[in-house]
């Protein structure tokens, strides 16, 4: 049974069973150690992919399998705005399973966090900071009890120290000076920490470590007060912001990694104890990107003799960062045996191993559908795969919907009542999820997180190119803060890493899946024929738009005409051209027109009966007894191509053969197009069958 608790991950085995076990030294699902691929210097693994490619799913699977077996931290970097927050989260997750409990990092974080507090206007912030400190102390087993208790105790002690004035002597008083208030608090917090928690272990080494890092500034700053040690300077720098803050963050990341290195005993190294694993989700976020950069920079220091044992698997939306020129790129299949990664050069990005997540194969889809309780349509897996292009999220949502549907059908069949119709490939997008949400909506919500942009993109996706989209936006009176809604939508798609740029002559959503989903969503949400936003109305507008744009837009006009359900007009136009034009060039244009018009999205089922297959087979020829033979032939050809142009349509052999037969028939009826049409008659059926773009005969 497919349970939602442990969703199965498809086509990610090279990562889960190959690369990560070789990095951590622990097998994915077995209690066995795996030889390390890298003895010392480790690459930072960066998983890239668009929305829904399963980046987070990979991390969740790693977390599920490694939790409790090695020191593990899973952090969504998009949720925390600052690197220090990420570090605190990492410490909280790693500390319980790590031998030494971050003796360097902890006072650093303490000093930085302490600076947040003790200002009247930041009361809420103080409370969160204190709570955060309490969590750290608890994770490092320095305190016990509930978070609130520890936080209260800490705050009380701190206040006692501040009021008691034992730090007053150390810090010169400048009343009302926020910076010196911060100093006082940092002093008090550090004194509290070192006296209460680090007395036995000795406070000298951490203090000395920070002192060494800020030794130069110590000497040069005239204002450096007596007793102001490196830790306080660290906090000071941090709160100054800008470059100072970046330097402070760098120091803290170094402290974090050096703590981890020191926590690993020789025994653990020789015993090949699994390395700590940190999973960083969404590192395209500012804090995540910064943390990854700092870790990479730490590892790229020249002359590094000691290497930290931390295994980092990070995810990033889209592609690798632009400045990661020295990063090693590996495809998933390359990870099965060895990555052959080796640091080349001193650029920080040399420590990066970029693994783009690839789409699923048809076999994976077949496996996903394996749990179906009833026999499925034999072409369903193929249709699903063609429709989604192997996109993991869309694939899994659709498969879940299919399985739900089969379950529901089985339940209905067992109950008295009329049996529901079989689930065909064409009905895939009309399914609903278990919650009753239409699948296209469910998927789009995940792929395009912004509802505003999504609502804007749905109608605009019907436009052929940016100009048409712009015109449509104006027609639909789409509003927003931006000047040009269509451009804003395109920018959004780029920001969400769906595309690098938006060509002017292409639809807004370049991704086929996204385009298909948006178009279907537009069809689904079409509000009847009368509405301004109705399917017919939009396509009517677009047809008019293209008609006014000139001769080259004839095919687009025909396409929108067909999308609006008006096949008769299209047939008449094609027939007229067929019978009037003679030269070879116009033959090609006619074929292009025919093919392009046939890619029109079918109208909503509410105001249109889909009889394309029957029409193509000639079942309704008697309706057209008033037109001539060639028109009827073009009518059948157009409906056949239109029917088969659906991504989810099954290329039925009869229909494909009919395409060839109709074209052959037409080739015999024209005075000069015979060569072109008969060539198309030979090549198109095979292309349609394989769902390839239809080849235009060469001149």
């Amino acid at each position, binding site marked *: 049974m497919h349970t939602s608790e442990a969703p199965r991950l498809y086509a990610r085995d090279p990562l889960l069973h190959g690369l990560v076990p070789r990095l951590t030294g622990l097998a994915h699902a077995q209690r066995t150690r795996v030889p390390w691929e890298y003895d010392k210097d480790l690459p930072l693994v960066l998983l890239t992919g668009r929305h829904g490619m399963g980046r987070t799913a990979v991390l969740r699977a790693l977390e599920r399998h490694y939790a409790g*077996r090695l020191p593990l931290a899973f952090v969504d970097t998009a949720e925390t705005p600052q690197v220090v927050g990420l570090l605190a989260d990492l410490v909280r997750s790693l500390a319980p399973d790590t031998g030494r409990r971050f003796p360097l990092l902890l006072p650093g974080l303490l000093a930085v966090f302490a600076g947040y507090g003790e200002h009247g206007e930041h009361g809420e912030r103080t409370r969160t900071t204190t709570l955060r400190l309490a969590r750290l102390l608890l994770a490092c087993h320095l305190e016990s009890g509930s978070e609130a208790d520890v936080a209260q105790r800490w705050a009380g002690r701190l206040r006692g120290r501040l009021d008691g004035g034992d730090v007053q002597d150390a810090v010169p008083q400048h009343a009302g000076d926020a910076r010196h208030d911060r100093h006082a608090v940092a002093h008090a917090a550090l004194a509290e920490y070192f006296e209460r928690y680090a007395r036995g272990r000795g406070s000298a080494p951490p203090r000395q470590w920070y002192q060494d890092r800020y030794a130069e500034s110590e000497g040069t700053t005239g204002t450096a007060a007596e007793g102001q040690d490196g830790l306080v300077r660290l906090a000071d720098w941090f709160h100054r912001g800008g470059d100072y803050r970046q330097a402070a963050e760098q120091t803290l990341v170094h402290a974090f990694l050096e703590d981890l290195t020191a926590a690993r005993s020789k025994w653990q190294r*020789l015993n090949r104890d699994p390395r700590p694993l940190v999973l960083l989700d969404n590192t395209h976020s500012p804090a995540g990107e910064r943390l990854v950069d700092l870790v990479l920079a730490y590892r790229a220091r020249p002359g590094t003799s000691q290497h930290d044992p931390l295994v980092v698997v990070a995810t990033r939306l889209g592609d690798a960062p632009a400045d990661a020129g020295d990063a090693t790129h590996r495809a998933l299949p390359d990870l099965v045996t060895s990555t052959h990664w080796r640091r080349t050069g001193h650029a920080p990005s040399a420590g990066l191993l970029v693994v783009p997540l690839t789409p699923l194969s048809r076999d994976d889809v077949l496996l996903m559908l394996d749990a179906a309780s009833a026999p499925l349509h034999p072409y369903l897996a193929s249709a699903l795969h063609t429709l989604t292009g192997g996109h993991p999220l869309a694939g899994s949502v659709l498969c879940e919907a299919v399985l739900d549907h089969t379950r529901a059908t089985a339940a209905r069949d067992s109950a008295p009542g009329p049996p529901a119709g079989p689930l065909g490939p064409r009905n895939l997008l009309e399914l609903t999820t278990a919650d009753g949400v239409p699948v296209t909506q469910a998927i789009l919500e995940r792929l395009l997180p912004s509802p505003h942009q999504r609502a804007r993109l749905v109608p605009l996706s019907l436009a052929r190119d940016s100009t048409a989209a712009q015109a449509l936006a104006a027609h639909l009176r789409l509003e927003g803060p931006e000047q040009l809604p269509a451009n804003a939508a395109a920018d959004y798609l780029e920001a969400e890493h769906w595309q690098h740029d938006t060509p002017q002559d292409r639809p807004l959503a370049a991704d086929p899946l996204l385009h298909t989903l948006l178009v279907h969503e537009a069809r689904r949400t079409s509000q009847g024929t009368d509405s301004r936003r109705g399917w017919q109305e939009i396509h009517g507008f677009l047809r008019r738009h293209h008609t006014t744009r000139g001769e080259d837009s004839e095919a687009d006009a025909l396409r929108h005409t067909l999308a609006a359900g008006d096949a008769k007009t299209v047939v008449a136009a094609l027939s007229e051209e067929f019978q009037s034009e003679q030269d070879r060039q116009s033959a090609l244009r006619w074929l292009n027109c025919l093919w392009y018009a046939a890619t029109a999205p079918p109208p909503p089922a509410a105001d249109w009966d889909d009889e394309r297959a029957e029409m193509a087979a000639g079942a309704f020829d008697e309706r057209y007894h008033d037109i001539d033979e060639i028109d009827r032939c073009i009518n059948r050809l157009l409906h056949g191509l239109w029917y088969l142009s659906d991504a989810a349509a099954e290329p039925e052999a009869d229909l494909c053969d009919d395409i060839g037969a109709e074209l052959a028939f037409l080739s015999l009826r024209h005075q000069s197009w015979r060569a072109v049409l008969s060539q198309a008659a030979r090549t198109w059926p095979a292309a349609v069958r394989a769902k390839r773009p239809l080849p235009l005969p060469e001149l």
Partner: protein
Amino acid sequence: MFLSRRNGFGPLDKAVAVLVPLVLIAVGVVVYLATRPGDCAGGLEKRDGECVGVTDEAFEANDDIKALVEAVADENARVAKAWSAPQLGQTPMPYGRIALMMPFTSDDSSAMTADMIRRALAGAHAAQLRANSSGGPHYQLLMAPDGKDLDEWRPVVDDLEGLTDDRQTPLVGVMGLPSSTPETRDAMRALSERRIATVGPVITSADMNAPYFFKTSPNNDLLVDALDQYLKKNKGRGKGFLVFDSRPDDVYSRNLHRLLEKKFGEKYGLRKRSASFLGSTGPAAGIPQRFQSAAQKICVTDSDTVFFAGRDQDLPALVKRLSQEPSCDRDNPVRILKVGIGLEPTLTTDELTAMLRETRTTLVAAASVTPEWWLAKSGAPVGLGGFLSVFDKMKKPYGLGPKPLDDGYAIMYHDAFMLLANAFDRSYSEANEGTEGSTGTPSPVRTPTKDDVYNTLIDASIVDTGESTRCIGCLQGAAGTYGFEKSSDTDQWPVCKPVPVIEHPAAKDRGPQTTYRTFAKTFRHPCP
């Protein structure tokens, strides 16, 4: 590091998993080796907690015989060195090996007491020293402990058999075999089957017979004959009583019991005048030495001639019991007649002697040796002097205690060694008669084998010349001059062995007695 083992085992974990049991096993082995009972020294092997086997080296022994064992080992080493690496200017001296097979350990119920062992070993060593100080081949005295209960004789016999293959330093024979127990009989037969000449110095059971088993002591039959001869001269009041050991597994006591009944049963009506007790020698079978009923019966029947069919260790208890018995009439003297090798020193302690005098009881023992020989110097055998000259020197250094000769063990063991040594000497000189004369080299051309030794031993040595009885190659032992006959009548029991009868406490006015000689009746003329 302290995560649960859900993360598998690393190389060091596996190494520890392998090494820890190995170390534990190694520690266990070391501890076992360190704490297990000490290994047997001198090439002996451990059997049922006792060191048994055959050795010419010193081994772990009780303190009271340690010095003796070391002395024997030193002598053995000297003998071996004189053959293999003689001192400059000396010719290599060939040597034979005589095994002393007997228990070297003891406890309360063992076949030999610690004193017996010490004296037996001292006697054998004295004989070794004597033999090695005279001309002819030298001898190693191999010590062959066979367990305090004589039950570990099998490995010893196997080891001894292995030694007979040695052509240069052959095993001459085996001596020892103290008690007449079933184990001794089995050992004796096993040795005889392997055609190894064996001498039992203190065997007295008449049924301890095997073709290769020689005895230097008279058997109980002969001893009882000697008692008979004594009783004929000292008749007393003629009221007899028999006290016998009821242990079924004690061959000696049963044999003696049978012989006494046969000899005196009818005459003294012993069938109805007898009492039994459980001897202290042997495995636990009840409370030993319960003499109360015997003492009562003796006194009630007013017996004056008490025959004792048991071992000497049990006799003091009977005497004590008799002295405490209130129903006894102290007016009439009582004789307790016993047989044995000699008089156990425990029977002649001052306390017991006083007790005997008080109750007017006399111990009358037919024995192989009598203290008179060395105390009064009267009627002492010719060979005793030579033995005493060596033995007297050993008394002090080896702590042999008071009256070391009384029980006869030292003398009898000495004689047993001498018997084998003499036989080897004679075989050796006969075998090398020709070569010695012609070449003058002392290196032996032929070394006699155990079979040669046996043939020499069994050779008829007492001959009737028609006018007198002469002894050819008789043993001039410390316990008399005697030999062996090939005839089946004597069964390798000594012929013409003197059997003195001892009275204790000695009567002051005791006249000279005629000493009984074994098998003397078969000769027309008295023994030589």
